[in-house]
């Protein structure tokens, strides 16, 4: 993960705009802060259960359980940076898994040939839904919330029509044994390595390429982007297509891991991914965000669930705590953003409201 941390300084290309550079730095700051929060959570659990929480088995398990969400999180980060939202990812994941399973089942065979066709089919299905989302949002001007709410229902509905609502299980043995449960070396799971590759690629594209730069530009000020020659419509279509593509890819990973299309298990996946992205410092108002933050943000719910189960705390509490962290993260984002836009210092003494912080009023 440290390789990702080093990409945090790449938003420097926005430096020639005053407030923008501040906002960009905010995102990095928040990603770093949320890393500290994650470290704190890990520390608390590690202190409470020193002999069980930080075992290789548990770390490996938690990482594996977060891997598929991380793949989805890459696409979602791009979408949210453009100021949009994609509610359809969980359904697109299911749909892609269903179609891939159908195709692989029809082909038969347990070899790599069938598996590769399945992977391609899943990616194409995801890409298709992403393009539909993008076209409707960019060209038909239907708000992203509505478009993706619509495709959420449609992708899930089609999955249930095709399967009769019954989970499919066709996945070639090679996929299950390598991608699903294999290890690269020792205890390093293949599934998480694949997710890491997707995350690193996503971070490079977002922070090092023109595509990423355009994504930030569209999200912070679409009109300004248009005037300097960014084809905003086309770019939005590409971003939603990317989100669909990774959701399709996540579909085949999901099928490999669970050997089931998990039709009923993905109803909250979209919200979990969005929460992770936002906790990680990506602003719902667009223009600000990092892939690194998203990955950290996604680990917080996973680690909390894991830790609570180990502590023997009712797992309902995980939702309560994640909800609180989510609101706190957005509050911090909002407050800092307001301060940055006023051109004042990044520090602002809102703690003094409660009479506990230092009374440093510098305005």
């Amino acid at each position, binding site marked *: 993960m440290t390789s990702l941390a080093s990409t945090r300084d790449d938003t420097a290309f926005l430096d020639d705009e005053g407030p923008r550079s501040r906002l960009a730095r905010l995102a990095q700051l928040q990603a770093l*802060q949320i890393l500290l929060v994650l470290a704190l959570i890990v520390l608390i659990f590690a202190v409470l259960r020193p002999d*069980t929480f930080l075992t290789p088995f548990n770390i490996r398990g938690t990482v594996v359980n977060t891997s598929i969400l991380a793949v989805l999180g890459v696409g979602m980060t791009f979408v949210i940076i453009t100021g949009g939202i994609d509610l359809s990812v969980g359904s697109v994941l299911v749909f892609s898994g269903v179609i891939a399973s159908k195709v692989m089942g029809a082909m038969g065979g347990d070899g790599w040939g069938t598996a590769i066709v399945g992977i391609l089919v899943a990616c194409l299905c995801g890409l298709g839904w992403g393009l539909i989302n993008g076209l409707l949002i960019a060209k038909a001007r239907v708000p992203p919330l509505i478009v993706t709410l619509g495709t959420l229902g449609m992708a899930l509905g089609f999955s249930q029509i095709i399967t009769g609502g*019954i989970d499919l299980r066709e996945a070639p043995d090679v996929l299950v044994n390598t991608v699903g449960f294999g290890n690269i070396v020792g205890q390093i799971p293949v599934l998480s390595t694949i997710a890491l590759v997707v995350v690193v690629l996503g971070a490079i594209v977002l922070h090092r390429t023109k595509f990423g730069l355009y994504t930030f530009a569209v999200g912070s000020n679409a009109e300004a982007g248009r005037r300097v020659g960014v084809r905003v419509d086309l770019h939005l279509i590409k971003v939603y297509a990317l989100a669909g593509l990774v959701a399709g890819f996540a579909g085949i990973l999901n099928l490999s891991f669970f050997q089931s299309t998990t039709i009923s298990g993905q109803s909250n996946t979209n919200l979990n991914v969005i929460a992770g992205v936002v906790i990680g410092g990506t602003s719902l108002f667009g223009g600000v965000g990092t892939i690194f933050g998203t990955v950290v943000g996604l680990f917080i719910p996973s680690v909390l669930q894991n830790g609570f189960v*180990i502590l023997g*705390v009712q797992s309902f509490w995980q939702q309560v705590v994640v909800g609180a962290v989510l609101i706190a993260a957005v509050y911090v984002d909002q407050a800092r953003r307001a301060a940055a836009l006023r051109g004042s210092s990044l520090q602002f003494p809102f703690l003094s409201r409660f009479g506990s912080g230092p009374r440093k009023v510098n305005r």
Partner: protein
Amino acid sequence: MNRNGAIIAGLLTLALAATGCGSSNPPSSGPSSGPLKLAFVQGVIGDAFYVTMQCGIEEEAAKLGATVSTNGPQKFDPSLQTPVLQSVIASQPNAILIAPTDVSAMQQPIQQAVQQNIKVVLVDTTLKDPSVAASAIASDNLGGGKAAFDAIQQLAPNGGKVLVVSVQPGISTTDDRAKGFQDAVKANPAYQDLGVQYSNNDPQKAAQIVSAALQANPDIVGIFATNLFSAEGSATGLRQSGRQGVVKIVGFDAGPDQVKALQDGTVQALVAQQPALIGRDGVTQAVAALKGQPVTKSIGTGFTVLTQANLNTPEGQAAVYKTAC
């Protein structure tokens, strides 16, 4: 970390502290010392069947001096149960009692528990290869399906068309109930089997299935709903079609809603499992396995058929599922 970070951290510590206080579980000691640590992984949380099983487990564990922690997924789905199971394994209990949510998808995650030297006992549902478990305890579901058909024969003695509303294929328990029922129907020429429809554990879908089936076959005499949600939905479907009382429904399980449906006359009979007994047997087998004593690989538990006539007898009341211990 600056002050903003500090606020998040503060909130979090508070929340964690609060949850720590809210926990009712006794503090457990190290993995090797003290009483035996058992963990129960439910198929889904907040279901009367699993709550009753939990009661049985806790009761028996208290007798044998073991501690129990109970966890489960929000929905009956392997993608949600796997992370819960993984965390439970990480907490290093001596034995895990689990109701797998899928015969194949849960095989590998449960194998991981066995690899960590944790004894596994399957309760209620089972696996494709149950040999990894020390013991598997479940209702004899084939027998349960047959019991349901016996109930329908009594309620609609003249014969006719019968339908099964089940959850989804791949769940060993409901598959067997449906099979037991269908086998019994085939053995009796007076009845015609309309096959199995799947509700995907969604009461609304079950209601639609029953409404649609009545459109196609107005002369259905009996419906066997293989689980809680299917029965609830089937009852709704009959009510929507105005055929309640004419078409006899035999439900499986005896949760509060089924019992109310039975009292209201929407459902005419219930085949009640014995979840508390499954739980108690599960603990006995797990503890025996841990102590190196002989275990029974497979245990089938029986049923109680509930009707309005026997519901209020002590025996009937004992068969009703609990919502809290």
